[in-house]
């Protein structure tokens, strides 16, 4: 697995990729943080259904600074899915999966190395986004009436680690589902079409007509987890449901990848 991991890093740790990632992380961290801070309102004026975690009072807590990061990153679910689907599916479309299998025939190790490398890269990027989002929020919060005096100190650090862990777990869920989809469908276009259609319109349309959808579907489960739970789905339930999907998807993808002929 380490061979595949190091090989994958060759693609990721290029100057151009690093530069684009850094710019995207800064733009996203600043932009999303600004939107969340400016959208914060006193709890008493929040509309029904709005997340209480984003009230001015809640954001003034020790974890407020990084709660902004956690809430902001939840907007990027599709992006994470698209990146992981595309990253793996393109290897099939271009024939480079065949090239890699000629050098690393242990297929599961190859797949694991690829996913772990991209997750490592995502983890570092997320840490960067968290710092940028926190700094931006710290600058903008006073203007929005948010008290930031509790944002430094050990409690705040603990919250930062917890929020980071939660976001990483959430990204891992999308990463594994996206990779599984790519391995099963082996085409960038088809995998993206299916992934976006399923996690976007399909789950939400069903949710509109059936309130129980959030307790059953993986995308809605991941959304509920990122939001720290909803009125319909607790965090624990979201974790369990999503984990089941992820495990089943991983088993199916690994089985197919290990057994299927690689002809393209």
């Amino acid at each position, binding site marked *: 697995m380490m061979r595949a991991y190091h090989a994958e890093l*060759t693609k990721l740790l290029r100057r151009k990729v690093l530069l684009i990632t850094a710019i995207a992380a800064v733009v996203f961290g600043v932009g999303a943080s600004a939107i969340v801070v400016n959208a914060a309102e006193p709890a008493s004026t929040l509309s029904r259904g709005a997340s209480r975690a984003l009230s001015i009072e809640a954001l003034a807590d020790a974890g407020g600074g990084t709660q902004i990061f956690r809430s902001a990153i939840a907007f990027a679910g599709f992006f994470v899915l698209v990146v992981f689907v595309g990253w793996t599916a393109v290897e099939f479309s271009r*024939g480079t999966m065949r090239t890699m299998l000629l*050098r690393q*025939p242990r297929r599961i190790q190859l797949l694991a190395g690829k996913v772990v490398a991209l997750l490592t890269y995502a983890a570092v990027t997320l840490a960067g986004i968290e710092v940028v989002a926190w700094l931006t929020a710290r600058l903008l919060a006073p203007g929005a009436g948010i008290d930031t005096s509790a944002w430094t100190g050990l409690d705040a650090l603990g919250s930062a680690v917890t929020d980071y862990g939660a976001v990483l777990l959430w990204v891992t869920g999308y990463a594994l589902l996206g990779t599984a989809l790519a391995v099963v469908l082996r085409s960038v276009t088809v995998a993206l079409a299916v992934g976006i259609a399923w996690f976007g319109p399909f789950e939400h349309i069903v949710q509109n007509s059936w309130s129980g959808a959030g307790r059953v579907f993986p995308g809605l489960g991941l959304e509920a987890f990122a939001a720290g739970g909803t009125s319909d789905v607790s965090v624990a339930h979201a974790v369990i449901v999503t984990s089941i999907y992820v495990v089943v998807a991983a088993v199916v993808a690994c089985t197919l990848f290990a057994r299927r002929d690689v002809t393209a």
Partner: protein
Amino acid sequence: MTTTTTAATKSTAPVLQLDQLTKRYRDHVAVDHLTVDVPAGVVAGFIGPNGAGKTTTMAMLLGLVRPTSGHATVLGESIAHPERYLGGVGALVEGPALWPGLTGIENLELIARLSGGETRTVGDVLEQVGLTGRGQDRFGTYSFGMKQRLAIGAALLGEPRLLVLDEPTNGLDPVGITEMRDLIRALTRADRTILVSSHILSELEQVSDWLLVIDHGHLVYSGDAAGFAARASVEIVLGCRRVASLLPLADIVAAHGLEVGREDDVLIVTPDGRDPDELAEQLNRHAASAGIVLSEVHVRRPTLESSYLELLEGVSR
């Protein structure tokens, strides 16, 4: 179906041993009970018409495709465990598939890391395939010939004992084909076996010393290249300045008890076991004494292509 296997010219243990290897896709049999050995140290040309099963056979040997039945060994290891032998194999199958956004050097470094090998040999490999000056350029900017070269460079990483090259001249212009042939020649070493498929038989003829010929998934020939070429008949070509002289010339040939046929404006004589050069000289002399001036006298020796076509003709009969 005719299957011929001649004795190996090199006596070392086979690098490839296929035993009843079969691949079936629903109703279509791509490779049909293929049984053949390839000795070590040869450049083995793998010949067959499009759809004969060459690429599928190579893909099975490289662990990319599972056989439906039968088995095979590569470098002494079963193809059920490609991880045990692929470290000693370099391959280019179904065209050059590398990462277009990476430079030539980065592509080779990636492959080297994936193989668990050293990345410092990358420079040597680039030099070997003639891409030293283009190593810093992105793979996506390369011409097709350069892409083929880099893919062969990737196959060469780790000093493989077996090189498997599937149609390396596909898509190349005449200059590219000549360069590829020279490259394959340059890669030949005593301790390396090369299995190379191509539909350009004249190219294989110049680099191969061993041949595998398959048709519709069946083996039709396996053996040394010289033996294969010798299977086809040598012919003597006789041409006259005046076409009207062809008939009396044919009588002269027939008087020697030889079979004669006509091909456009020339006569084709089958030497029937006699020394063709000596016979051509005799016929020329007899024609001259009969007042027939020959404008063309030469011995047409079989090429790989003519032998191949003759063999396939025999198979389809």
